[in-house]
């Protein structure tokens, strides 16, 4: 449910970028979705397709969501690894529990195409 608020922000930024770049009809938008956020791809698409109907510039817009997995780095030995949820693994190289998340906590708008 909380994807509604964030999708409104997605639309707001698209509107702002479209105006700034004199794009009156957005065709394509790519959104990078970190695997360690609490947002679900299906819900983002669902709300986007509802909200875009009220936006003149977004009538033909297609949202592409690029999922980016979580990455971690061991603060002890520097080894990197992947992670699917915030329950952090022990470092595979040195067994340390001093792990930091380096990727996957963001939702970012990447590209916009239109004319």
């Amino acid at each position: 449910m909380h994807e509604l608020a964030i999708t409104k922000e997605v639309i707001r930024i698209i509107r702002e970028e479209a105006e700034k770049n004199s794009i009156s009809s957005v065709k394509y938008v790519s959104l990078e979705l970190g695997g360690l956020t609490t947002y679900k791809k299906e819900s983002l698409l669902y709300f986007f397709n509802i909200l875009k109907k009220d936006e003149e510039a977004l009538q033909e817009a297609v949202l592409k969501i690029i999922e980016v997995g979580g990455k971690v780095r061991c603060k002890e030995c520097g080894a990197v690894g992947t992670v699917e949820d915030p329950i952090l693994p022990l470092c595979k190289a040195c067994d340390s529990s001093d792990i930091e998340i380096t990727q996957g906590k963001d939702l970012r708008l990447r590209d916009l195409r239109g004319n």
Partner: protein
Amino acid sequence: MCKECGCEDKAAKGPQQNGSDEKNVQIDRKVTEANDATANKIAHELIHKEILCINLLGSPGSGKTTLIEGIAQNIPAKIIGVIQGDLESDVDKKRLEQMNIEAYQINTHSGCHLNAEMIKEALGSMNLDNKRFLIVENVGNLVCPAGVKIGQHINIVVSSTTEGSDKPKKYPYIFMDADLILISKYDLKDAVGFDEQSYLSDISRINPQARIIKCSNRKSSCFQEVAHFLEHEREHVLGHHHH
């Protein structure tokens, strides 16, 4: 057909170009940027007023408002300001006002969490003179408020034994940013079969840095511990800023 010159040659326009005037813009903007900017501004302004802002999180019924009442037994109520977030009603606001704690009620209606804009608006109606702590009791929810900045300096998660010991495993996002985890209704742990070892082991995998305080509602010693924690954090946050 090309809109610019009328030619039929699409191949000449490159692989990703459908119309002649199609633009490709690289944006790379964080979607939460507007909220984060407002939140950072609030956090900064509150430091300037020497106020520590606490984001108080937890399930409905976990004991968030009880914790505020407990804090107010150990820190003078007149230096505490509270913002209450609930879908409906001002039950909690009235409850706190009975203890002479100044409280502002936000009703989100269907909104599942508070955001920085709501706090900004609330602060516009509050008198923060002589306040030292601003406690924002977020909407009772272990999912949506996680990671949403509201201008807080620290996060406290209240997690009751009656909810079960599997909550960190099931809702790790709310626990991962907690500075303090308060295990409430600790006196009921045996009655409800709370597996403390498993709970603490999960916390150590999600947020090993978090301070943990166990709290039974009838014992004020844990509230005193929380009050000390808050005073220490306030010194720490203000000190960091001044140097």
